[in-house]
């Protein structure tokens, strides 16, 4: 998958993983990895970017005698998910167009 496309999709995937409850790094990777490949080193910049854009906030809580960082989605983050899903029709049309044109070229 194209790196930029994947990056955009992963950002929304992370937001979706936080949509119903707060989560932490290991759990986010565990929730997303069955759907799309994601590594620890990929998740960190995504979380950082989403936080800087105001799509999520963080808090630290004690777990088994150590601090664990929890991520929570904001209203802006939820709006980003809606925006992404509303673009689905447009993306589908673009995808169909690309496939159609590509097939035409193959026939020629």
């Amino acid at each position, binding site marked *: 998958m194209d790196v930029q496309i994947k990056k955009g999709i992963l950002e929304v995937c992370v937001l979706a993983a936080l949509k119903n409850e707060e989560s*932490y*790094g*290991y759990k986010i990777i565990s929730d997303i990895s069955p759907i799309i490949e994601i*590594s*620890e*080193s*990929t998740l*960190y*910049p995504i979380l*950082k970017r989403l936080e800087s854009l105001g799509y999520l906030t963080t808090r630290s809580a004690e777990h*088994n005698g*150590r*601090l*664990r*960082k929890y991520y929570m989605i904001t209203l802006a983050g939820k709006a980003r998910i809606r925006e992404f899903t509303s673009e689905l029709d447009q993306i589908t049309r673009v995808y169909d167009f690309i496939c159609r044109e590509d097939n035409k070229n193959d026939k020629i």
Partner: protein
Amino acid sequence: MTKYEWERELKKNIYRLPPDEIARILDYYNELFEDKSERGMSEKEIVREFGNPFDVAFKIMSEFDGDAEKDAAGTGAQAGADADDVTDGDVESAQNYLSAVFGNGSGAAGADEPFKTAGRASAGVGESFKAAGAAVDKAVNAAMNAAATAADRASDAALKATGKAVDAASRATDAAVKAAQKAAADIARTARKSVKVSARVVLVLSVVLFAVIFGSVAVGVLAGGAGLTLAGVCGFIAGVCELIAGVTELGKGAIGFVKIGMGVAAAGLGILLVLAGDAMAKGCVILTKKLLGGKKNEKTGGEKNEKDSAQ
């Protein structure tokens, strides 16, 4: 690679980041490590999943450099947008200002065109400046990226070379330690063998010495007993002779009785001593046989144990 080594390599390669950002990254990986560890993964597995620290650092630095470029580009774009906003409005404001200063005469309306021309010229100059600025930015960014990439590559190469050297040194140390351990084990084995041989020699000598001493004592007792028995028998015979010779003389007869008694007692004691000497001699022989035989058995048992261990 251990967790400590992995973190050390990562830190080495992200040193250009601000300290608080480095701390955040290390906290992030530390938390992931703890969570994976709680789920039963070993240190080695976790570090393998994290991936090569050079690659992780490269990804982090690429993101960081990309963000920095975006920030710079955003500032430039904002400046360009500000310049675009000014063109017509500024011309009109300037026109109004000059009209107010120089009056609203018929010439003022004619001044409109030069202002517009000046405005267009200004806009053209602005565009040229923007294009030049963008080109300069692009060139500077390209040069910085090239320099950063070259520095990263050189750093990677140096780190890899250092790692190889450390590995080689570690292997050499391991080999030396193994050789020393083997030599020490050989020396210990030889020493154990020498001690065993010495102990065996000392034991045999002790047994022989004991047999000689105890045998001599037994022989002495036996000889003494035999002599005493002979003396007792002789005394007995002398007493009988005196008894026969002195039947008529009461005193001599009594002395003959005493001598017979003493002869019997001496003979009895002699017989006891002979029996004791014989027992001692037999005991000496049995004990010597037992000591030497027991050692043989022990040796046989020891060899058997060694064979069992070998199996």
